[in-house]
């Protein structure tokens, strides 16, 4: 599995925001519970999509561990949004993991992404493999079937 093109994924995520306007929150100062909807701020003219994609916003820095290599990031309303295959990884930027936490953080996240990938691709117990494959939800889903 490899990450798709960054531009396409960023565009897709912005489209997702249009349909899932509340997927991203914006932490605003004193209390992390005091979070606000990106879309609603945007509707009020208080947020700028172009600025939101600038990684420099909010001083966001991506994790520096080698495991992050190859992943694509962009900052959005106080979150890092990473796309890995067909999985959204949304990282709260309001304090990224500290340097002492990064080694197991990155390693564990890689493991989790692989677990999610496998779990979402695993055929249900009563799945009857089709005779042909339309490359539906998951490429690996079909790949597993072809291996049988």
């Amino acid at each position, binding site marked *: 599995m490899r990450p798709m093109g960054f531009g396409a994924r960023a565009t897709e995520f912005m489209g997702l925001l249009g349909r899932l306007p509340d997927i991203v929150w914006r932490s605003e100062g004193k209390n992390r519970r005091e*979070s606000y909807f990106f879309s609603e701020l945007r509707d009020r003219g208080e947020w700028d999509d172009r600025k939101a994609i600038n990684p420099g916003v909010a001083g966001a820095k991506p994790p520096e561990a080698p495991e992050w290599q190859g992943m694509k990031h962009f900052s959005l309303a106080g979150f890092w949004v990473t796309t890995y295959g067909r999985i959204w990884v949304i990282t709260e930027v309001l304090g990224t993991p500290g340097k002492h936490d990064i080694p197991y953080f990155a390693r564990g996240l890689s493991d989790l992404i692989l*677990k999610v990938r496998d779990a979402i691709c695993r055929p249900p117990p009563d799945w009857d493999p089709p005779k042909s494959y339309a490359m539906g939800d998951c490429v690996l889903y079909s790949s597993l079937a072809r291996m049988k």
Partner: protein
Amino acid sequence: MPNANAPFFPVIYVRGYAMTGREKDETTSDPFCGFNLGSTVYRATTNKDKPLKFVFESPILRLMTEHDYTDVYHEGLDIMDPDWTGWLAPRSIIIYRYYEQDSSLLGLNDHLQSGQ
């Protein structure tokens, strides 16, 4: 080829920095690491001393109630627990619970052992 589920793919949420041991334990104690918490206070106003009421249920609740997402917990187990079995729907919410390893409750409590 376009994916029929796009853009409703699994969402992995990653909690931000928890500095102290207490914060790490609080994060570990919460199944959703705070992403289930909302707010009724809107501070982005011209008068910083007078916030407005603005109900934000939380990203988790809105994904579940308005967009048919579900969490992945099953019979008390998380997806990374050895005994977890099953498969995920595309509209799944996964919480990366990496602070467990560093908490005094469920982990190795490394921050105390190393004197940090």
